[in-house]
């Protein structure tokens, strides 16, 4: 039998159902891969017993004819999701040792569908970062290396860096990610896997450690479009515990998958051709356009005039919301506490937050505090909310001319650890193509497109109308069939 860890979500589900192998064998195989891959630092904690317990239950359920949608499928869970009884840190030392007494809705849905948990995945601290270098639990190392002999350790992207590395290195067939301004899509592109951020409100935010609540959205990352459809279907759904949860039925995304996109119009936004982006990005974009044309889609040039303002808008709104959300870390209710000698309550707050937050988190809290402070609120925050409305309107107008947009996911391939940490704005630019869809709450997916000259993966992004995950998945499937991306990193870890 071939290595079970080469199988994706659908193949595992079907194989367990058909009796080709047991769920127990699958869990053992992935647990072994996780244990061997410490060099990647993809997981903050391993939970092999959880994966095995769910697998054994799946094997019993099969015997009794009670299989569930994800029976036998072990998953990695980003450490942003509260998992009852399992440490949940959001990559921060502020939450070291925090064991939630409740389950996030997304993980509850996944476990209820029969999935087990291999471990909690490393991530940028409170999801603030694009390279997984801000985690208090160390950098995640991408399983990919450049093919030109350079042995530099590369970043898997971020903030869902552990999630990306785990899928690419075959430590998990699928994982959860979260995306506030590209944190599913950019890492998926960096490691040659598929990841979708659904419409804002599809997945409940209950039990997700909050970063920027008007943007935060959970989604799956996996090896292909079908696996993403299966996982998203299990994760999504109305939740009264999240006031922004969409009160809509979850469509049968997997059953309705179709790569027939003949006659669909695919928009190419001219503002996404930006200066300073390497030629290889343009080349893979042109290739993607050709594939979509080959699939029978009509290619139309479109305009989203406020695109260039999306990133600065994001870097007002997200820090503003973060400064408010992260006010809860006060050393009183949970998490870390630092108590200076003879200090009072205010000293405790300040010492706790100084010690518990990393540099990037502090920077964003302070930016957010500043743009919300008296005298600056209108000039910064309100202005940003108005520009955000204009960015959303750009998309509204573009849907009169096309059904989907095809763009690059990120402005480069994966970069080396340390390369961009000294310059926050250079790091922020990683999400230049991802942030507009986040600000507008739209479903967007990254699909692998090919390798660059250094043998590193590049991804393209498909953006769709609000609620049209099906269209995005279908366009992604048509793309995937033509890209035929099968490259994977050589194991060195």
């Amino acid at each position, binding site marked *: 039998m071939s290595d079970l860890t080469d199988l994706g979500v659908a193949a595992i589900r079907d194989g367990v159902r058909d009796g080709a192998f047991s769920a127990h064998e699958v869990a053992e195989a992935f647990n072994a891969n996780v244990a061997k891959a410490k060099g990647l630092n993809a997981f903050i904690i391993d939970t092999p017993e959880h994966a095995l317990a769910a697998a054994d239950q799946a094997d019993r359920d099969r015997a009794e004819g009670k299989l569930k949608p994800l029976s036998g499928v072990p998953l990695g869970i980003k450490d942003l999701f509260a998992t009852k009884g399992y440490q949940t840190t959001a990559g921060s030392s502020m939450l070291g040792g925090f*064991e*939630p*007494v409740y389950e996030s809705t997304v993980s509850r849905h996944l476990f209820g569908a029969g999935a087990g948990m291999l471990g909690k995945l490393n991530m940028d601290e409170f999801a603030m970062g694009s390279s997984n270098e801000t985690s208090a639990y160390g950098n995640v190392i991408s399983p990919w290396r450049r093919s030109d002999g350079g042995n530099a350790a590369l970043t898997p992207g971020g903030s869902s860096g552990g999630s990306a590395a785990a899928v690419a290195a075959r430590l998990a067939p699928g994982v959860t990610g979260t995306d506030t301004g590209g944190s599913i899509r950019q890492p998926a592109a960096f490691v040659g896997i598929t990841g979708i951020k659904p*419409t*804002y*409100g599809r997945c409940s935010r209950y039990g997700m450690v909050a970063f920027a609540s*008007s943007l935060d959205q959970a989604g799956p990352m996996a090896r292909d479009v079908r696996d993403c459809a299966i996982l998203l279907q299990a994760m999504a759904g109305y939740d*009264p515990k999240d*006031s*922004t949860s*969409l*009160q809509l039925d979850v469509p049968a995304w997997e059953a309705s998958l179709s790569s027939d996109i003949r006659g669909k119009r695919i928009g190419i936004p001219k503002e996404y051709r930006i200066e300073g982006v390497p030629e290889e990005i343009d080349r893979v974009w042109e290739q993607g356009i050709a594939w979509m044309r080959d699939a029978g889609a009509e290619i139309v040039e479109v305009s989203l005039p*406020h695109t260039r*303002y999306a990133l*600065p*808008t994001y*870097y*007002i709104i997200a820090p503003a919301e973060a*400064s408010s959300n992260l006010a809860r870390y*006060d*050393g*009183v*209710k*949970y*998490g*870390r506490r630092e*108590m200076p000698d003879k200090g*009072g*309550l*205010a*000293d*405790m*707050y*300040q*010492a706790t*937050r*100084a010690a518990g937050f990393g540099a990037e988190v*502090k*920077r964003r*809290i*302070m*930016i957010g*505090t*500043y743009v919300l*402070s008296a005298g*600056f609120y209108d000039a*910064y925050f309100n*202005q*940003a*909310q*108005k*520009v*955000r*409305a*204009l960015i*959303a309107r750009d998309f509204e107008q573009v849907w009169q001319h096309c059904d989907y947009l095809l763009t690059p996911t990120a402005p480069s391939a994966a970069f080396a650890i340390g390369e961009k940490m000294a310059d926050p*704005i250079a790091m922020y630019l990683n999400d230049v193509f991802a942030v507009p869809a986040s*600000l*507008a*709450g739209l479903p967007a997916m990254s699909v692998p497109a090919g390798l660059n000259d250094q043998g590193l993966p590049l991804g393209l992004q498909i953006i769709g109308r609000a609620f049209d995950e099906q269209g995005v998945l279908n366009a992604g499937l048509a793309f995937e069939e033509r890209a035929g991306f099968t490259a994977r990193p050589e194991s060195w870890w």
Partner: protein
Amino acid sequence: MSVDTATVRHIAKLARIAVSDGEVEALVPELNNILGWIEQLQEVDVTGVEPMTAVIPNQLRMRADVVTDGDRRDAVLKNAPLAEHGFFAVPKVIE
């Protein structure tokens, strides 16, 4: 707009983050760099544009006015750094 050391100290105080003199010195150019970059939003004409309040139009729901939760003090306190007599414990705040 730009910040100086006094403003950075003020922001840090509002954010309840203790900062050393060295950190303040380092934060001034860092924050100014970012603030200078987001400044470009001022050039966008937003005449007549309402600030966005909900990214996906969604009716906020009312729930039934009934007790649905409670009576789990120990779970609430489980992760507290310091809990005494069934309460969160903090340094003395009243003399």
